[in-house]
């Protein structure tokens, strides 16, 4: 099953490479620009718009994008967290999930062990 999930990530990586090729230092014709602006939303995995949340939590200095292609691709800043968008949530959620799994794994409690075996 893990192999199949890996398959999905492999495909997404190919689409991401394709999307990043249009950020190379060229000016695209209008039709291609429009197409890629939609495509990049799909490939960037930005499922939850985080701009508002980031704006409330952090006060960044207002920095313009490197150039128009970067703006189009969603890299509207030079900072890492705003550019990552909702992928940044993984940095918060993943350690929590790992901590819960480690707690289940090392627990001596029988009920907890049963829960862990079921999740396996």
């Amino acid at each position: 099953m893990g192999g199949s999930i890996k398959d999905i990530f492999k495909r997404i990586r190919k689409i991401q490479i394709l999307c990043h090729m249009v950020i190379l230092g060229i000016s695209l014709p209008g039709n291609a620009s429009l197409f890629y602006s939609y495509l990049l939303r799909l490939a960037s995995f930005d499922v939850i718009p985080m701009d508002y949340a980031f704006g409330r939590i952090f006060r960044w200095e207002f920095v313009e994008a490197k150039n128009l292609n970067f703006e189009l691709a969603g890299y509207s800043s030079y900072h890492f967290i705003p550019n990552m968008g909702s992928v940044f949530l993984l940095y918060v959620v993943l350690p929590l999930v790992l901590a819960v799994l480690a707690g289940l794994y090392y627990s001596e409690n029988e009920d907890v062990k049963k829960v862990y075996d079921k999740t396996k």
Partner: protein
Amino acid sequence: MIATSFALEINLLIFNEQNTTLTHTTKEESLYFLHFGYLLDLLVAAVTGIAMLGFVVFVPVYYAKEAQFIRVELCDVEFKEKFGYMYEDMNTRRMGASVFAYPTLVMIRSLLLAVSIVYADKWPYFQFCLVNFSSIAMIIMVGNGDYFKLPAEKGWDLFAEFVILIINYHLVILNDVLLEPIARQQVGLSLIIFSGLLIVSMIGLMFWSSIKIVYRFYELRRLLHEAEDARDRVSRIDAYRRKAIDKYNKE
């Protein structure tokens, strides 16, 4: 995406290249929010950078040094259960530890692309050459070896690389060879068609993988039920036989 974001952060830190137009934070706010934000930003970027570079350096060095040792260990069930995720869909039986060359090259290629996008935006031909040669390197590597368990995977990977090469040639033409607007629109249309081809095939394969996950899950459940039924039947037959033997002994 992660690599590009990281490269942009480094660009900001080392070269301090940014187009700051206005600052909307007051001095009091900046003492907490601004500094906390920057600190967290740096921390996350540093962790990601270490993980990415660690992957690029650690995997080839470790597996190249310990190739003979790992070749034995790769088939080991316990080792596979713990670290098998790295090579679950790879053909380790045929290629041994050299299958790890594939994920390493993929990672190096992504890093190079990100670096060229951020730092070489003034030299488009250098970028085109980099994309071109990295795609050709991938084609040579995948074409010469059997890195995947499923033979169809090799075909799909080669197909994706060829389409990336075709798109790269479109971009070369769009750079400064072609300046007439109508011709540019036509090349743009061709670019969209080839990109669409790659995207449709990749998304189709993604759906196929998802269907495979669900199918495998239900297949596993069905097999488990069948095994339970078979076990019940065997125990019932055993009980019947024991009863028959007892009856025979009594008679």
